[in-house]
């Protein structure tokens, strides 16, 4: 099941469905890398609210996506990690390293807006 990517002004929002396979994740990575350029997006939000498991492969792929998106000049934030999923990640020692996270879509948008303002001020 492909991950739908919604374009909202200068951001891309990818909403992950519950039964996300490895293949879907890799397709998402490639689609985001391409669409960031196509739409000249400044930020990407990956919403994992529906995801019931975030294992080491998924985390690694999300880290990769954040890196790819960053290299393409956009910011990325992961939103909606559920309490049980967060607990399991801590227990298993699964890390997202420096990937930004926010509580939900609203907070994720606020985060990207803040980063963008910051970048514009610095320019």
């Amino acid at each position, binding site marked *: 099941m492909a991950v739908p990517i919604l374009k909202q002004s200068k951001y891309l929002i990818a909403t992950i469905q519950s*039964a*996300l*396979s*490895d*293949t879907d994740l890799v397709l998402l990575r490639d689609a985001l890398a391409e669409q960031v350029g196509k739409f000249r997006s400044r930020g990407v939000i990956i919403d994992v609210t529906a995801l*019931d*498991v*975030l*294992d*080491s*492969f998924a985390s*690694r792929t999300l880290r990769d996506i954040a890196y790819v998106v960053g290299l393409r000049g956009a910011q990325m934030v992961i939103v909606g990690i559920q*309490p*049980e*999923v967060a*607990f*399991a*990640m801590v*227990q*298993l*020692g*699964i*890390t997202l*390293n420096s990937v930004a996270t926010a509580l939900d879509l609203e907070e994720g948008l606020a985060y990207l807006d803040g980063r963008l303002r910051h970048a514009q001020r610095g320019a």
Partner: protein
Amino acid sequence: MPNAVPEETREACVSIESVNDIVAARRQGRILAERLGFSPSEATLVATAISELARNIVAYAQRGEVVIRATSQAGRHGVMIIARDQGPGISDVKLALQQGYSTSGGLGLGLPGVRRIMDVFMVDSGPDRGTSITATKWKI
């Protein structure tokens, strides 16, 4: 109640042949854990452990199977996961259990993390007999 779990739903065997089977395996694990009365957090731990073990099968042995079984011992109820394959085997189990989870440079098997979250964890592996990992999580 654990006793309410019908006999026929106490075990599931999921054949693992591609990455897409991983989702099916962890779903079965979650279903069984929830039926046994595991909390959502504990059920997620079981599902994540299954995800890691099933992924190892795809990555290292191409195919195998994951058996998810309700088990009990001395009045405790738990979920037993058996992940087995006829792949090349783990040449150094001790090493795989030491370094798997580092974000870079480790073997990436995810085994140390799985061992940490499960109450019972056994690895039987060798070049001539593939790998069989048995892990049990008891309900708190």
